[in-house]
């Protein structure tokens, strides 16, 4: 590690390329924290989105029509509006209206931290996408399979749980993986409300050292690396859940 730091410092003195995150211990620490925050946002966002998406997917299957319409309205609205506008609406709009994001009159802290707002925004936005993906997966299960489950005496929800969902989930895995990649990329928008994730920390660093080009490249590589790891994990999950004879 020391050797790496020294070589980057030497690089700076010799060529002027200032990769300060690699030799300045304080900045290295800050940037590592930034990456950690980005991953944390991504994981919580993913968890929230899966939870909300699955819930919405089930709610769209109930017989009570108004509930279905409500969920469909939610899904369509959040799929077709920009995430950043949603985040602003939640953080500045809802947050200030219900006094969730500001300090109270007696100095008590905000109910929800900016980071929690980002997690909520990510969950709401991508939950809508997950709901749609799962619905497409359920529609993709052959009708004969559904009829076979019925013929075997499964009830409506029993068939869903034991027969349809396992198939639908596996069919939706690639799309879910894409969605997850989108979540990872979207964590960068947390920058907008000053959550110290990788991009924000990098911004702080380059305003200090004027090493914009170097830091931009570091940020880009960081995200690509995170994406790469996530893609590998998704592929591994796909392999674990692989059922012989299904698909491909």
């Amino acid at each position, binding site marked *: 590690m020391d050797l790496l730091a020294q070589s980057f410092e030497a690089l700076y003195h010799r060529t002027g390329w200032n990769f300060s995150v690699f030799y300045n211990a304080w900045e290295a620490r800050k940037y590592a924290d930034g990456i950690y925050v980005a991953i944390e946002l991504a994981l919580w966002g993913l968890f929230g989105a899966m939870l909300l998406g699955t819930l919405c997917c089930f709610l769209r299957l109930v017989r009570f029509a108004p509930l279905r319409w409500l969920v469909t309205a939610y899904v369509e609205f959040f799929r077709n509006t920009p995430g950043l506008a949603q985040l602003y609406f939640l953080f500045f709009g809802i947050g*200030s209206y219900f006094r969730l994001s500001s300090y109270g009159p007696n100095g008590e802290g905000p109910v929800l931290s900016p980071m929690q707002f980002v997690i909520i925004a990510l969950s709401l936005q991508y939950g809508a996408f997950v709901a749609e993906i799962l619905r497409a997966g359920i529609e993709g299960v052959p009708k004969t399979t559904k009829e076979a489950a019925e013929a075997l005496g499964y009830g409506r929800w029993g068939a869903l749980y034991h027969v349809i969902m396992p198939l639908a989930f596996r069919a939706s895995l690639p799309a879910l993986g894409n969605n997850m990649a989108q979540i990872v990329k979207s964590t960068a928008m947390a920058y907008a409300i000053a959550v110290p994730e990788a991009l924000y920390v990098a911004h702080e660093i380059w305003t200090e050292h004027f090493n914009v080009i170097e830091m931009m490249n570091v940020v880009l590589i960081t995200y690509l690396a995170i994406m790469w790891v996530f893609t590998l994990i998704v592929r591994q999950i796909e392999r674990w859940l692989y059922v012989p004879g299904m698909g491909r």
Partner: protein
Amino acid sequence: MTALLDMFGPHSAWAVLIPWFPLILKGFWLNILISVLAMAIGIVTGAALGALQMSKVRLIVLPARVLTLFLRNSPWLVIVFYVMYLMPFEIRVGSQWISFPDWVKAVVAFSLPVTGYISEIVRGGMRAVPTTQWEAAEALAFGPARTVFSIILPQAFKQMLPPTMNLYCSVAMATSLANIVGVQEVITITQTILTTETRPGLILPAYGITLALFFVYVFPISLLSRQLERVWSKGLQR
């Protein structure tokens, strides 16, 4: 009841916001402009990159693949930052100075990820055309260019249009990211209005309006794309 009436009275949030509407719409117009131009540029460059991906020479395929992956996997916001900070604000051509206002930079920034996605859509679309079509074209003595343009592309078009429309929806929504780097698009204008009026009660309706604007613009496109996908996928399977 009075609370309900207050919502529409002369001092209500809506009454304050209505005079600002033309400005908000002007901001949204910039969003549309950025997205359309970025899409137009991205389609041209993306089609070229996609074609390179289909090449038979490995030395061309590999860099094209890597570039596509790179463009698709970078966060849009990071790309926007990248272009905003690293693109010169004016360049000299001969004795003329050509300046790039920030919204032009935004167009360039958004055209980059579009290039990556289009490249992948083109590749997928060309793949979906059966190999026999290529062979038939060869048997009929079509050259490579004519094969692609008059036989493969017309068939791949149906495969490629719905995802391209979806991509356009994403781009239109992503233009809001330009707000972070200070382009005068609809959210920036909303924020300016909010600071001008300094009324906390306005925040919720003002951001609600921007959300609604985006929804009204994007939703029909995404509905149409879904409709086309449904109709055309039926025709293809048979």
